[in-house]
């Protein structure tokens, strides 16, 4: 049995949870510097993030604003009342024995994001929480550094709307691009700024027969989610995520084909063996005992604050993409490349503005920037000069050249006569005429045969 045939009967059901570490100056609930990466262990801590007795949290406003911006960018509505809650579990990297997170009253809910393939992914929530410390395993002992403890994290949770791995990749890349556009995070996967968790399950696609009987009951059956869900955790690159999900889909289909019953579990990705492995089974599942964080009064985000945050946001990558297509007549692919970073997009717009004054077309600039892999740091004048020099500013259209040549011929009766009398050099006079008329932009290599052709006709 081939994998392909198996896939034909099953479809994956995937939901994604993305955690992004915000690049605020201070931590989420205390005033320690959040710039912990690569610092000496336990030098960025205080009673609050160390979870010492008596310490209390205090909300960092910038983090809340960043979270709301992410929510707004993903078309969420901002909850008029939101609350922090405590997520209780024991692990040595969790200093207080609970993580301050959001559960019943998240900051942002009910958003969506449209993928390149046109699919709309529903966003269940965008909420604020805090990071944990870091563990290092050494000779049977575990060492703990709490520098990262309390760094603000935003979690973005989708509905289980993905049906293929490519869509997951596109979604994750789009989020990374968004975080960078908003300037809320470097979203570096390797450094752990951005972390992915996928919930993967598979289900049988309804047969052709039942498709015909398209009753409401059948529709309901199709929408039913599989009775289990495998959570893939700690994936630190897009490549590993794709590999892990693909592996998991295959594993699950094979298990179901063998008549096995799949259950709720958490699995990790082993990059060496290229397989997933069980981290926690259903029996060991946590009971987080969420309850409202009594140390923090509720947040009441007013409409006016939402409006002012919205107006402070930059043009989002997907809007920019669309505008580039429309305004500059770029292809979708071109626009996507040029809007990959806000820096490149701004640089390109600068080129277009200046190039326009010199009659250089946006599409040509786009082609040149993309083909030559021009970086946003390069001097604008230099690039435009090169485009001209390379002939990118040249008039190459034969019809247009013919028009110009005809004009030059009618202006230079003497040169025409000289040419007819055998003076080959007179052709240079006519070429010069065309160049003058085209402000030097005519493609000389194409001009000679056009002029020769026209002069044959002129009698």
């Amino acid at each position, binding site marked *: 049995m081939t994998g392909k045939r198996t896939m034909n009967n099953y479809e994956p059901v995937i939901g994604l949870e993305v955690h992004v570490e915000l690049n*605020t*100056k*201070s931590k989420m609930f205390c*005033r*320690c*510097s959040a710039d912990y990466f690569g610092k*000496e*262990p*336990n*030098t*960025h*801590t*205080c*009673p609050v993030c*160390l979870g010492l007795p008596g310490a209390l949290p*205090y*909300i*960092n*406003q*910038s*983090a*809340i604003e960043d979270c709301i911006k992410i929510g707004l960018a993903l078309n969420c509505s901002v909850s008029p009342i939101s*609350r922090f809650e405590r997520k209780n579990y*024991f*692990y*040595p990297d969790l200093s207080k*024995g609970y993580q301050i997170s959001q559960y019943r009253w998240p900051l942002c809910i009910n958003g969506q994001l449209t993928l390149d393939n046109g699919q709309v992914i529903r966003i269940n929530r965008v909420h604020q929480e805090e990071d944990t410390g870091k*563990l*290092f*395993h*050494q000779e*049977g*002992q*575990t*060492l*703990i*550094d*709490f520098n990262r403890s309390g760094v603000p994290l935003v979690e973005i949770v989708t509905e289980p709307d993905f049906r293929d791995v490519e869509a997951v990749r596109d979604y994750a890349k789009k989020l990374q691009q968004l975080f960078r556009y908003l300037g809320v995070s470097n979203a570096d996967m390797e450094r752990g700024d951005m972390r992915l968790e996928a919930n993967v399950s598979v289900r049988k696609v309804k047969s052709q027969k039942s498709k015909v009987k398209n009753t409401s009951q059948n529709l309901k059956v199709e929408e039913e989610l599989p009775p289990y869900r495998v959570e893939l*955790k*700690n994936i630190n690159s897009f490549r590993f995520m794709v590999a892990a999900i693909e592996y998991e889909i295959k594993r699950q289909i094979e298990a179901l084909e063998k008549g096995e019953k799949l259950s709720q579990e958490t699995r*990790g990705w082993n990059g060496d063996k290229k397989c997933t492995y069980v*981290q926690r089974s259903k029996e060991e599942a946590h*009971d987080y*005992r969420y309850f*409202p964080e*009594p140390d*923090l*009064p*509720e*947040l*009441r*985000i007013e409409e006016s604050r939402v409006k002012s945050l919205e107006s402070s946001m930059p043009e989002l990558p997907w809007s920019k993409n669309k505008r580039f297509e429309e305004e500059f007549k770029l292809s979708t692919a071109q626009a996507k490349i040029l809007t990959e970073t806000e820096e490149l997009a701004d640089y390109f717009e600068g080129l277009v503005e200046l190039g326009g004054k010199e009659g250089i077309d946006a599409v040509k600039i786009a082609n040149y920037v993309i083909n030559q892999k021009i970086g946003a740091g390069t001097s604008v004048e230099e690039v435009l000069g090169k485009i001209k020099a390379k002939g990118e500013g040249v008039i190459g259209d034969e019809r247009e050249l013919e028009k110009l040549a005809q004009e030059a011929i009618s202006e230079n009766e003497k040169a025409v006569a000289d040419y007819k009398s055998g003076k080959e050099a007179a052709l240079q006079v006519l070429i010069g005429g065309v160049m003058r008329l085209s402000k030097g932009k005519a493609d000389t290599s194409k001009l000679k045969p056009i002029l020769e052709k026209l002069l044959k006709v002129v009698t």
Partner: protein
Amino acid sequence: MKLTKDQVKKVARLANLPLTSDEEDLPEGEAGKYSEQLSRVLEYIDQLNQVDTTGVEPTFNVSGESNIMREDTTVASLSQEEALSNAPQKKEGMFVTKGVFEE
């Protein structure tokens, strides 16, 4: 309601509380004692069921405050020495605990 010995053990596990003399063959171990004591408290608490709370909003905080936030500025952290000053075990500037499985 009553809390059975098994429930007490489950709750103790969830709360990361080691119960002493938890051996199965010791009926009067800590789980037994707590089962009896907590059941009495829970039976008392059950009178809450007599209260009609339909349409009543819960109270989680009585400070009357909301939107308490601070600016994103930093202050000095504790030194590594201060941070570790109460740790029973430390190594290489870090806290130490018995080995846990790498997740």
